[in-house]
């Protein structure tokens, strides 16, 4: 997941270059600054309405979510039913997206397959948030030895290449949806911890927290009432990015045959099916629908996360 750590590391490189406008006291410089600053784009973008693309992305995401949730109720065909008289058919009124080389309805397989990606993405992030997020929130605020220890542990865990760890664990534990969700969720914990801890830490040092303390607020209250609301924007953005990352990892695993196994569909193994047994030449639709859907899903999630980031933290995000 390359995107997430950019948020942390690139801040350092900008700091190394020193302050942007040291002579800001002078209006001359300020005038120059105003005219050059809005070239940065972010100020202007923040004021812009979210835009057509954003709502398209939201729309697609909602469509996928809804169809996954309502799959049992929707008038879909059986994704595993093999209709030998309708092999490799192009999209038609009977099969809206066509059929595969075993006569199975592609639309049904697509919709049912989406569940795997969504469950892993959403639940994985949820696990990371609940455990890593709360730990980070509290740890960033309180500091102390526990914080140092947790930080060191998360550093060590993050030093491990995630994909290798996941593959190895899945190898020994068995590739079921539950296992994979748990593994990926656990893998997200140190990430969430780091990011939310950093955010919590930066707020914990601000004046309004000190003020709350002097007014006699308890730690719990401060964490919940002062720090948490400020940490939410960064968390939301990062969660979305992480979700996209988890979906990619699961898809990769599925493609490699290490996730939920066939015949249960998941977008990853559907893509794999689309490439095996010469399917590419005989029936490109098997590949097309899941690949396109996966692309749109990832793109939507990234777009939404990016737009929200532009809205929330104009200077802090550097993506």
């Amino acid at each position, binding site marked *: *997941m390359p995107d997430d750590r950019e948020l942390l590391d690139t801040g350092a*490189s900008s700091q190394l270059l020193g302050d942007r406008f040291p002579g800001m006291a002078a209006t001359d410089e300020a005038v120059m600054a105003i005219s050059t600053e809005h070239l*940065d784009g972010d100020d202007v973008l923040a004021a812009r309405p979210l835009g057509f693309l954003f709502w398209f992305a939201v729309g697609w995401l909602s469509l996928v979510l809804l169809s996954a949730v309502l799959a049992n109720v929707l008038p879909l065909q059986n994704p595993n039913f093999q209709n030998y008289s309708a092999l490799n058919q192009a999209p038609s009124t009977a099969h809206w997206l066509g059929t595969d080389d075993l006569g199975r309805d592609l639309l049904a397989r697509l919709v049912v397959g989406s569940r795997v990606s969504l469950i892993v993405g959403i639940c994985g992030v949820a696990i990371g948030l609940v455990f890593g997020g709360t730990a980070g929130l509290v740890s960033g605020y309180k500091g102390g030895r526990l914080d140092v220890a947790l930080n060191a542990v998360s550093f060590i865990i993050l*030093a491990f290449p995630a994909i*290798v760890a996941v593959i190895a664990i899945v*190898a*020994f534990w068995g590739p079921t949806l539950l296992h994979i969700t748990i593994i990926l969720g656990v893998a997200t914990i140190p990430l969430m911890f780091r990011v939310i801890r950093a955010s919590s830490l930066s707020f914990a040092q601000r004046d309004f927290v000190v003020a709350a303390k002097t007014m006699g607020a308890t730690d719990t209250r401060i964490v919940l009432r002062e720090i948490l609301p400020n940490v939410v924007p960064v968390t939301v953005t990062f969660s979305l990015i992480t979700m996209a990352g988890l979906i990619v990892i699961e898809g990769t695993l599925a493609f*490699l045959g290490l996730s939920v196994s066939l015949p249960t569909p998941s977008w990853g193994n559907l893509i794999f099916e689309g490439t095996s047994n010469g399917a*590419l030449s005989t029936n490109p639709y098997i590949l097309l629908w899941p690949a396109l859907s996966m692309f749109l899903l990832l793109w939507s999630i*990234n777009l939404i996360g990016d737009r929200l980031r532009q809205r929330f933290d104009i200077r802090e995000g550097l993506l």
Partner: protein
Amino acid sequence: MGKYLLRRVLQLVVVAFVISVLTFLLVHLLPGDPTTVILGPNDTAANRAILLKQLGLNYPLWRQYLTWLGAVFQGNLGTSYLNHLPVTHILATGAPVDFELIVISQVIAFTVAIPLALATSRRPNKPLDNVATTGTFGLLALPPFVVAPILVAVFAVGLGWFPATGYTPFTQNPAQNIHQMILPSVAITAGSIAVYYRLLRSDLISTLQQDFITMARSKGLSSRRIMWRHAFRPSSFSLLAAAGINIGALIAGTFVVEVLFVLPGIGYALVQAVEQRDYLVVQGIALVVAIAYVLIQFLIDFLFTVVDPRVVRE
């Protein structure tokens, strides 16, 4: 300098140790047992007991770990149950394949991302910039397992310009090797291009607003010279950091393309080993790849101190 290196080496040792413990525990704490696989149809309690004793699996864990660690230090990572090749052999033959994939991929990524970022950072939010930003955003949505099949469909099956599978070592036939490696390398590059471009562009925009750029202009330097000699240098550091972070994703990507294009790399061996329950191979590969990954991170960190004169080496 010496102090810095010492600290780093110490950190490396600690992390490597932790990794070794974790990979060792994989085999022994998770459910599942190598014996069932090895024995196959001969799986009886008696046979199991004999096999366990043979494999040394009935000793206390800490003793097994030390034995294993000892073996590792002697270069013995175990042997594959299936083809009886030492794990080290599998790694040695697979590594060049992955190395080549990653090198080609990163060369492509930098060749595309750097000039593009240099060009768009001077005129942000103009047409070229908007197209580039949208385009690279799309690249983020094309992980290897999505884009590789599409590339094969279009360029290998459809147009027939490149082979869909197959591998000849570079030493044997360079031209054919490159020809075979192009599609897989491109397949893992999408994410890298996006990350490098966005990062560099953002950093450049920031740098270009600094006073020393105006100063450079006032000396009469040309735009191109300013971009390359003055702006790019400070901004390139973030690229280095990004490269380090990106390695993890690259490794994952190589696994995918190896399976799809049937390239005899480490990833392919790993996936095969998992499917066939060849546990020692899985364990050995996991250990080595993890340690290599950590080494690379440390190396990049070190490069930072060398390249950026302002970074203080504690």
